[in-house]
């Protein structure tokens, strides 16, 4: 078993044999557990890049890849990964060539997820670190209870728009919605119960669309610097959208922040 034979020293990236740097997994007929077992075995044997083809609904891909040595892997997914892709992701990079389902980046700790398509509901749920880039749109309850702590500040960038309950109970982190296809934000209940973090929306949002705990304000220079950094990365990852950073940034953005860090203090305090 790989776990037993790999020694500490052999795990240094530069020493890994070329031959095992890029591995391929055919996920046809593989169950969730089998697929994740293979990923873990490959990582422990020193593989740095894995392509998984024919993915069709297997869940939790990329979870359970924690090692005390902080081994890192790049995973490319062809097909449609199942729910809770990259749950608890520990610093790895996952690229999906297609759409993703519900629960992408559930409680993700660090690393990066790139979705070349759309994501389903509860994208970035309880995410506490790392970055997620979704090219198209996403479903309900995006960034539900996303949080941050000291140096860890998760970032989620979505190319188009989200459905209702974006940033519900959000406690930290940065969410950016670029509304690239001019559909305007139709979501309601944005930031309901929000008590930390920041949401940037390109375009316009009505006060009736956001929760009572949310303040809508224009962006300032510090916000522009944040947007500049992450929109650059977004555009780098999705050249196919055919839009430049300047084109995207040169338009109106609004900032949503919580009015209070304890929105329910009056409700629950005795």
């Amino acid at each position, binding site marked *: 078993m790989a776990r037993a034979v790999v020694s500490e020293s052999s795990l240094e990236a530069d020493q890994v044999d070329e031959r095992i740097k890029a591995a391929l997994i055919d996920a046809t007929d593989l169950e969730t557990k089998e697929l994740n077992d293979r990923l873990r075995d490959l990582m422990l044997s020193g593989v740095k890049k894995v392509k998984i083809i024919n993915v069709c609904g297997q869940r939790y891909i990329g979870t359970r890849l924690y090692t005390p040595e902080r081994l890192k892997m790049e995973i490319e997914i062809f097909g449609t990964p199942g*729910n809770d892709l990259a749950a608890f992701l520990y610093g790895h990079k996952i690229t999906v060539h297609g759409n993703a*389902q519900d629960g992408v980046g559930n409680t993700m700790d660090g690393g990066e997820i790139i979705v070349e398509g759309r994501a389903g509901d509860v994208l970035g749920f309880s995410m506490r670190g790392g970055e997620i880039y979704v090219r198209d749109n996403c*479903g309900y309850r995006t960034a539900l209870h996303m949080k941050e702590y000291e140096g860890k500040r998760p970032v989620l960038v979505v190319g188009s728009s989200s*459905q*209702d309950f974006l940033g519900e109970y959000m406690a930290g982190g940065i969410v950016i919605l670029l509304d690239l296809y001019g559909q305007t934000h139709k979501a309601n209940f944005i930031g309901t119960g929000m008590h930390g973090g920041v949401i940037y929306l390109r375009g316009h949002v009505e006060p*009736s669309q956001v929760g009572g705990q949310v303040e809508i304000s224009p962006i300032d220079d510090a916000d522009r610097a944040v947007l500049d950094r992450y929109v650059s990365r977004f555009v780098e990852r999705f050249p196919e959208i055919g839009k430049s950073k300047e084109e995207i940034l040169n338009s109106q953005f609004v900032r949503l922040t919580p009015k209070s860090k304890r929105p329910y203090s009056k409700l629950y305090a005795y």
Partner: protein
Amino acid sequence: MPRIRRELNNKEICACSIFGAMNQDGERFTGAGVMLAVANMHVRGNGLGGGFAAYGIYPQYKDYYAFHLMFTGIGPQAKRSAKKELDAFLGLNFDIVYDEEIPHGDEATVSDPPLVWRYFVLPKKQGEDSLLSDEDFIVGKIMWVNTRIENAYVFSSGKNMGCFKGVGYPEEIGEYFMLDRLYRAYTWTVHGRFPTNTQAWWGGAHPFSLLDTTIVHNGEISSYGTNRWYLEMYGYACTLQTDTEVIAYAADLLMRRQKLPIEIVAKILAPPIWNAIDRMNAKEKKLLTTLRMVYAPLLMNGPFAVIIGQTGKMIGLTDRIRLRPITAATRGEMFYLSSEEASIRLISPQLDRVWTPNGGEPVVGELNSMRKVLQ
């Protein structure tokens, strides 16, 4: 190493699976594809219920109501005795043009199968009953059977369509009734069950149906008590011990008897919240307020995603804040609804459009023409 032991635990992932596929040109296809698709969501169910609704499967008997009967009870004797009683009742009230046991595979492959029989019938209305429409007459008789004849349940009763269901994973039930070999339908809907509140039995599997309306459902109807009480006033008896039954009867009441379009029905079952109504223009506000007042007891509270099947139609609907998932997709003349996109991609890797409908907003697939189905 406690960590490794934890990883080896098998997690029970609780949720049902729903799937639907419709050929909008009316071309009929076997159940093989939907069986594969729902099997891909195996982990969403737990083997305690699976079922299918298929439209267009009985062209040779398309003018007759196809009754699918389930005779339960312990041992063949109880089942035969229920059937004898049912046969007598059916003979009095219907002209039976043909009947047979529904073909199935080895009984050892499923758990405790009932005797499942189909009858092709026309109503024989007598006396006061002759004032009723065929449909009202049939609904009345079905309620009579389900409440008065011990161990007999009519679980499918539309024209040129049929439900197949039982205890097992849906792919096992599909195999048991040989849906991949014996039937071709223009619409298939399917359900994999993870029962949450009631025990598993063959009648409690989805779909639930009345006449040609069928429902497969993921979620819970926490307003079941209120909905059931309201529907009982209209003569619907809830006998199948599962919340989903009320959606089927509500759909029959609103769509068949009261002739309301699905767009309105959706606003009754999953109405916008009052805050949203407050922001509407005067006309919409009046409509939505009226609907909420008149049909308050038909509001389906709690999380749900359903696929409603009807002759020539397949409708997807979720609760107003979409607490259960549904993905819709199209490819050419095919229209799909599923709990998960991967299942659609399994049988149709290329799709023209994929989206997740907003909560409370129905997505409707309709036949382009009924001609092919009626031929």
